[in-house]
Every structure is written in C-alpha cells, then in structure tokens.
C-alpha cells in the first residue's frame, strides 16, 4: 500500500484533537491556505484548458452541470422519503452533497498522480462547474415555487461571487491567459509547494473533523449511514458518467470523487444565508465527520475500482 502524505497529516490532526492537544492553526492561516489551494487548482486547470477546442469540451461541460443538478435531487428524495427530515434540512443537506469538496478533489488528484493513473488536464474545470449547481438546486428545493424572482437573483449572485467560484474561475482564466510559459515565474509558488501546503491544510482539517465527530450525536444514526451510503452511490454515478463521457481512467475516477464528495466551504456558507431555517448542527458533523474522512481514507480505491470495472 502506498501511503499518502495528505492522509497521514489528516490523521495527525485527528489524533491530536482526540487526545485533546492544544495544537491549533490560527484561522487566518486556514483562510490563506484555502485561497492558495483554490487559486493553484484553477491555474493548473487553466494552463491546459487553452489547448482544447471548445467543441470538444462543450458536451462534457453540459454533462457535468447536469450531474450537479441531478445529484441533489436524488439526495433530497432519500432524505425526505427515507430519513423523514424537514424540508429545509433535507434541501440543505442535499445542497452539500450536490456540491463538491475542493480538498477531497486535491487529495484525489495526488492519489492518482502517485499511482501514475493518467487523467485529463482540465479536471479542475469540473470542480468549478460542480460547485454552484448543487447549491442552487438545494435552495430551490427548500423554497419550492415560492421565494420570488428578486430573492433568486440575490442567491445566484451570492453563490457565483462566492470566494470558491471566484478563485477557481479566476485561476482558470489566469492560467489560460498565461499558458505554460507565462506561468513559469510563479510555478515554484503555486505548483512545487502545492502538496506541501495541502498537508498543512489537512492537518487543520483533521483538527476540525475531530471536533465534528464529537457532534455526530446531534445528527443521528440515519444521517451517519447516509454519510457513507451517499458517496458510495454517487461515486458510482460519477464513475458511470465519466466513462460514458469518454474520460480516461483517472478522469472518470476524479469525476466519481467529485460526485461522492460533499461541500463544507461554499455550501454551508450559502445555506446559512439562503436557507437559515436548516440546522447546520445536522449537516456539518456528517459532511465533515463522516463523508470527508470516508472519502479520504477509504473512498478513492473504491471509486477507482468502479471505473476499472466499468471501463473493462
């Protein structure tokens, strides 16, 4: 078994928190690291993006956006039908699982790279595409037909100008504008350091996750099961779509990871404002305390196995 630094650092943070260590990373460092990671991911994707003709990418873009709209609907149906959650809570959790976790994506990228699995260079584009639709569908589900057009514009603006989307899209655009040569002077900062910076971020996420695990009681048994079952199911959907779209083994695995992952940056922030009646005490412990570590520690090989099986 190949050990991944990112996972070891995540575990170190987790263990430190469970041992009640006073270890902490100041919040400004957390924020700066997340800005850095989003920009770096965007840049990396942007450099390659310029090489592909739009005609090739357009169908893939449409398929990925459709995926981002369908997944939260599925989640919502299960949460309402099986879990009997209130409308607002079901919609909010659906939005989390419809959107994506950028850090899970970054960890999965290093996972496939270390194993030499080939992948498309423009995958960060998918992250940017998948960030928003899940959140928007979630708000729609919470509101039903009501809500009014004016409020809608507000929610849309908030999601699209949210820091994750701005930085990913901004990074993609700058990467595309600079190209492989123009990006060279900033490559040591954005690319050589990327994995190292990610380990520090993972350490912090381990600490945060450790606290959320303690809060899992509030979420209840159904949501804990949901937090494992959903990535397994959505991962399969992502793997299938990726295969249908003609992605490489690595590309399809990453699309599976994206489908399986749940947002804990953009979605919680948007839900607090757009669907305040949803209880974050239900969603956050499951997203961060169950699904995030599940994907990181166990999920990647499963999603890769899905793809190997589907592409066989």
């Amino acid at each position: 078994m190949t050990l991944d630094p990112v996972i070891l650092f995540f575990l170190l943070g987790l263990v430190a928190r469970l041992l009640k260590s006073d270890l902490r990373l100041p919040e400004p460092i957390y924020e700066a690291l997340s800005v850095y990671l989003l920009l770096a991911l965007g840049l990396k994707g942007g450099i390659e993006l310029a090489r592909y003709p739009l005609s090739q990418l357009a169908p893939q873009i449409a398929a990925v956006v459709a995926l981002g709209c369908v997944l939260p609907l599925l989640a919502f149906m299960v949460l309402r039908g099986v879990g009997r959650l209130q409308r607002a809570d079901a919609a909010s959790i659906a939005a989390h699982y419809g959107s994506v976790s950028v850090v899970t994506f970054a960890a999965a990228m290093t996972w496939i790279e270390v194993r030499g699995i080939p992948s498309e260079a423009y995958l960060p584009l998918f992250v940017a595409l998948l960030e928003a639709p899940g959140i928007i569908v979630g708000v729609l589900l919470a509101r039903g037909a009501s809500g009014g057009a004016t409020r809608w514009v507000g929610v849309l603006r908030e999601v699209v100008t949210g820091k994750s989307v701005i930085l990913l899209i901004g990074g993609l655009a700058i990467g595309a504008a600079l190209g492989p040569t123009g990006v060279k002077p900033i490559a040591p900062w954005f690319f050589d350091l990327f994995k190292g910076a990610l380990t520090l971020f993972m350490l912090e996420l381990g600490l945060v996750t450790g606290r959320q695990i303690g809060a899992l009681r509030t979420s209840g048994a159904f949501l804990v099961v949901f937090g494992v079952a959903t990535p397994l199911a959505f991962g399969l959907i992502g793997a299938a779509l990726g295969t249908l779209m003609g992605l490489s083994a690595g590309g399809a695995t990453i699309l599976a990871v994206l489908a399986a992952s749940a947002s804990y940056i953009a979605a919680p922030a948007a839900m607090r404002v757009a669907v305040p009646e949803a209880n974050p005490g239900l969603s956050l412990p499951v997203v961060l305390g169950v699904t995030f570590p599940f994907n990181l520690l166990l999920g990647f090989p499963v999603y890769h196995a899905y793809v190997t099986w589907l592409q066989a």
Partner: protein
Amino acid sequence: MDTMSTDTKQGGAMHWHVRKLLTVIAEAALERKLIEESLALGIGGYTISEVRGGGAHGVRAGEWEGERSIEFKVLCDADAADRLAGAIMERYSRHFALVLYTTDVGVLRSEKFS
C-alpha cells in the same frame, strides 16, 4: 433626559450624555445583515470584532471559516437600540446562534449617536 450629563451622577467635569450600546454576538454569516439592519434604522456607525465562544448551539471555536463568530456593537439612543434589537430577534434569533444585550453608556458627542 437625553441631555442629562452624568456629571451630576459622579462628579466628573465632562458633559456625558446617556446612550445605549447594543452588543450582538452572532455567527459571522450574519455580518452583512446586521450592518444592513443598522443602516436601515439610520444608525451612524458600528464596530465589529472577531470572537469565539460557546452556548446553546455548542462550541464555536472559530478554528475555520464555517465556525467564525463576530461581536457587533452599535452606539445609539434607546429607541434605535430597541428597534434594532427587535428586528434582529424577530428575523434571526430562531435560526442563528445569537446573543444580544444592551448597556447604558455615556458619550460626549451626542449628535453622533442619536
């Protein structure tokens, strides 16, 4: 009564005017809303600081962006404090981790905080 200075109360030389300081401790997600509500009531300013804490909604240790809390303070007259507190309680107290309280304070330039 508004112009009654506290110097009668404590013997100081300055002319203090009684005003209210309304303090709101809340999830950082409410920052924009709190500013907008204050502006809507014609309150002339506000001050914000980063805090962490714990309460009925559990520990909010402020370790990452999903868990930031702020302390939002406005100096104004009793009437505006009442209205702002009322608006905040009505619109946000049900669904957000939030605590608010008022303090009687003395200010010098009363026209700034009417």
